[in-house]
Each structure stands twice: as C-alpha cells, then as structure tokens.
C-alpha cells in the first residue's frame, strides 16, 4: 500500500471541561497545522470523526470543524464508527490523498461526554441490539469487558493482580503526559481498594468518558518532500476491517455470537484480523514493532491485545507484562501515553490520539515517555458493531 505522511499532530488535553466539542477540535487542529507548518487555507480536505453526544447528527463533525476554522471551500467528509471513528476518518483522508483528490488533509475528532455509563439514545427500539442489551439484560459496556476478563482468568490463569498491574503500568506512563486527564500514579493496592464495577474489574480499571480533541495533518509523500519534510512519520498500514463470519467471541453490543454450526471458524478471530490486515498492508510483522498504543477500555483488555497483535503467544500476555517488556524501557512498550486508563475515552478523538502519540514517539519528541529508538509503531482499537481500527506508522 502506498504511504502518506503525517506532517503534524495536535491534541486538546483530556478532561471533563464541559465545553462545546468544536472548541477542542479546533484547538487540536490549530496545533496540528502549526506542527506541520501548513496554512489552513492549503488544506484541501477535512475529515471529521463524528460525536453523537450532542443530541443529533446535525453537528456533522467535518463541516463543524471546517466552519470553526473558517470556510475555505475545502472538501469535507464526516465518519462515524463509534470508537473507531478516528481511524475511519483517517482512512477517508488517505483515500482522498492517494487518489490525487487532494495533497494535504486535516483529520480531526473531538467529544464532550456526559457523566457515567455510555448508554443508547432515548426511545423504545426493540430492533436495535444496542438498546436490547441494556433493556433485556442490563449489559453495560463494563459487563462485556468483564466477561472477557473472567474468560482470560479461566483460560490462561490470569489474576486480578495481573489486571491491576496493567493499570499501574499505564498510570506510571501517564504521569509524564501533559494531555492525560489522570496524570497520577496508581499502585496495585489502589486498584484493589477501588469498588468493583463488574466482577472482577474495579473502578480504576474501567475507562472513564472524557472530553478531548485530537487532530492530524496528513499529506502525499510528494507534498511532504516539497515542504522539505525528508523523513516524515508515515502511515504504512491502516485497517478498518469488519469481522469474518462466524465471529465466535461475544462482544458489544450483541446478545449472541455467530453460530459455527454450519461454517468453518476462520483462522483469525475478529480482533486478530484487525492487526493482521495492518501488518499485511505495511509489509511488516509484530517482530518489527517497537511501540504500541492499544485500547485498554479495561485493564484486562490490554492483555488480550498483546496476543491479538502478535506481540506474544496466546496465553503469554501475563508473563510479558510481568517481565516489564511492555513498560517504557522494556522490549515492546505498550501505551506509553498512559492509554485510556490515564485519559478516559473521548470517542471520536481517541483513535486519532493514538496516532498523535506514536508520531511523537517516532520523532523522538515524547519527553519522559520516550521509547528509545522507536521506528515502527502500531495502534489497535475496535468500534461498536464491528469496526476494526489499526494504524501502523513508521519512520
């Protein structure tokens, strides 16, 4: 796959600021444009990742950000893929660049979130599985996270302490991140002293909902060279795969898995297929990866990603974690940003924020979070209803 350049990155700090989402997006966009040294008037395409939490999709993200930055006649699109929205927006921008429709694009996502559990919009919708799982079962998002955690305990002997160690590691990383909402170090005992949300997961292990914004300025390689950016961070692979039938692992927001009674189970499960696609596009493999940003919606889910991205063998995640390999200074640091544990999730911004962090890492600009000599980084994430999301960046 042809590559595009990441010329600039920017974020608005995560928090619970309670302001309009466009403000965060514009802040992040201006930072990314300044970082890239690109004038807003030179941006040919704006790719917005949509928030749904402002009542109706009337806040079409791409045009809302474009208007707030000042309408210039740039082309625009908006993407919604739940937690995967940011990478979907990046994939649209990549398509525009590689087709020659534009030279330089702005990808931006931002959110303002309410307190508490994410829940579906109001109204009776018995034909919507997202409504049904709340109404008929009471299955919140943490319920699904916990089903996976308990399954990991049964299959691989994981312990609640293993899960708490993930939180502790990510909090040590997040202390050094000025954009993190919780720049505070937590220990295993702090996790154990926090209340159970969905057994075996505790409050400090469940991702909060946050306000925040993140943006990327991306361009063709020719445009990057014309700007004198000789060795920019490049997007070498991008994955937005859907599951392949039958998907036999229960996941949000479904009441049941597919049935494998009439079909062969695919060699790779859905989450494994997300990474497989990005490696295939980039012509690289897990062994080449120096740093990863993965979606720790719960502490336990980070361990699943180690295996699903091929960073260790199946059942090996607890050993990898306890060896220190996934801490900064280890062989393959995971979530040097602090991850969702230190940020809380700002849905349409989060997948973009993962790329921001890896860009800083690959440029050697990550300060006390720096993974020394990082040349290849990979993100992993997944959006409700079957949206894969992964980006591989390299120098």
């Amino acid at each position, binding site marked *: 796959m042809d590559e595009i350049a990441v010329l600039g990155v920017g974020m608005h700090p995560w928090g619970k600021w309670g302001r309009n989402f466009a403000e965060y997006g514009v802040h992040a966009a201006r930072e990314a444009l300044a970082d890239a040294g690109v004038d807003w008037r030179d941006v040919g395409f704006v790719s917005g990742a949509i928030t749904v939490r402002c009542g109706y999709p009337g806040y079409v993200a791409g045009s809302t950000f474009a208007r707030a930055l000042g309408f210039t006649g740039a082309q625009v699109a908006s993407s919604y893929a739940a937690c995967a929205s940011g990478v979907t927006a990046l994939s649209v921008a990549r398509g525009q660049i590689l087709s020659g429709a534009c030279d330089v694009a702005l990808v931006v996502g931002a959110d303002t979130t309410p307190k508490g559990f994410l829940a579906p919009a109001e109204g009776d919708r*018995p034909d919507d599985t997202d409504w049904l799982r709340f109404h008929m079962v009471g299955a919140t998002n943490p*319920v699904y996270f916990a089903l996976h955690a308990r399954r990991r305990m*049964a299959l691989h002997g994981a312990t609640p302490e293993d899960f708490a160690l993930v939180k502790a590691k990510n909090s040590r990383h997040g202390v050094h991140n000025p954009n993190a909402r919780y720049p505070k170090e937590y220990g295993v005992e702090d996790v154990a002293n926090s209340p159970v949300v969905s057994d075996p997961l505790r409050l400090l292990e469940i991702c909060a909902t946050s306000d925040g914004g993140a943006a990327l300025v991306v361009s063709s390689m020719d445009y990057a060279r014309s700007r004198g950016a000789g060795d920019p961070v490049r997007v070498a692979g991008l994955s937005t795969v859907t599951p392949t039938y039958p998907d036999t*692992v229960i996941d949000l927001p479904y009441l*049941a898995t597919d049935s494998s009674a009439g079909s062969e189970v695919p060699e790779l499960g859905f989450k494994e297929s997300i990474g497989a696609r990005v490696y295939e596009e980039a012509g690289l493999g897990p062994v080449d990866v120096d740093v990863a940003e993965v979606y720790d919606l719960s502490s336990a889910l980070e361990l699943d990603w180690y295996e699903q991205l091929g960073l260790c063998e199946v059942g090996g995640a607890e050993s990898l974690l306890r060896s220190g390999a996934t801490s900064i200074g280890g062989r393959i640091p995971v979530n040097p940003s602090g991850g969702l544990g230190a940020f809380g999730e700002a849905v349409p911004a989060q997948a973009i924020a993962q790329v921001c962090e890896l860009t800083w890492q690959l440029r050697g600009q990550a300060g006390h979070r720096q993974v020394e000599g990082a040349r290849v980084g990979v993100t992993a994430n997944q959006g409700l209803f079957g949206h894969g999301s992964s980006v591989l960046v390299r120098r």
Partner: protein
Amino acid sequence: MTVTTKQRVPAVEGFFTLGEEPHLIGGRMADAGGYCFPLHLGGADPDHPAAAVVEVLLSRTGRIWSFTNSAYPPPPPFILTEPYVPVVVAAVELEVERMVVLGQVAPGWTVEDLEVGMEVELVLGVLYEDDEREYLTWQWQPVGPSADGQV
C-alpha cells in the same frame, strides 16, 4: 386481602416461549445449518442472507462461557427496580448451536456461586413490573441445587 396474580408477559415479544420449559426463539439458515439470536436481527453469514432464516427453538441448556455482574445500576433503557440488586450476567455456550448467548442469571445466584463450564438451563424471570403485569426476560439458572441449598 385478595391475592392477585399479575399477568406475565414478555418485556419484548419474540425472544422466548412461555411455559414451564421455555426456549429462546432463534433462527436457522435454512440450508446451511448456522443459527442466530435473536431471530428478528438475523445472521451475518454472507452466503445466507437474513431472508433465508427460519424460526427455531434453541437448546434450553448450555455451559457458562464467562460471567460477571453489574455492581452499579445499568442506565436506561434498563428499568431500575429499587432497591437495586446487582444484575448477574452469563454468556452461555450452546453445544448444538455452537454459539454463545448472553443473559441474566436467575435471582439468588451471585458471581461467587458461578464457574466457567457450569451447566445452566433457561428460565424466565421478572425484569420489571407494574400494577397489572410482570414483564419477563430470559435468564440462565445453574442446574442442580440452588444458591441457598434448596433444590
């Protein structure tokens, strides 16, 4: 004092049969053999579109694939009954259908009572009620002695 029996109705129609031995109502791809639940949302088999799904009753028993609870009350559209008793949830593997189906666990069982691999059967339980009716959902109940030792 008069004892009134409330009418027992499904909270949403079309998910399960009523009676002593309830079944989940699922779908089966007519000529392929794969199943789906719930029926009205169809399956994802690219070779067999939803139009080819026929109604079937799913197995009443299975084994726990995983389980958890919700210590905090779920938000709407879950209908909260005070005082809130933590919802216990199990994902249950059905052997014949080779699929996993989510559901509440019957009242009286907590996560301490459950294990992955435990055999469970389908029962109906009250999700919420009003003055006239009890609104039912499907629940998984461990087979054998109940949590309080009674059979």
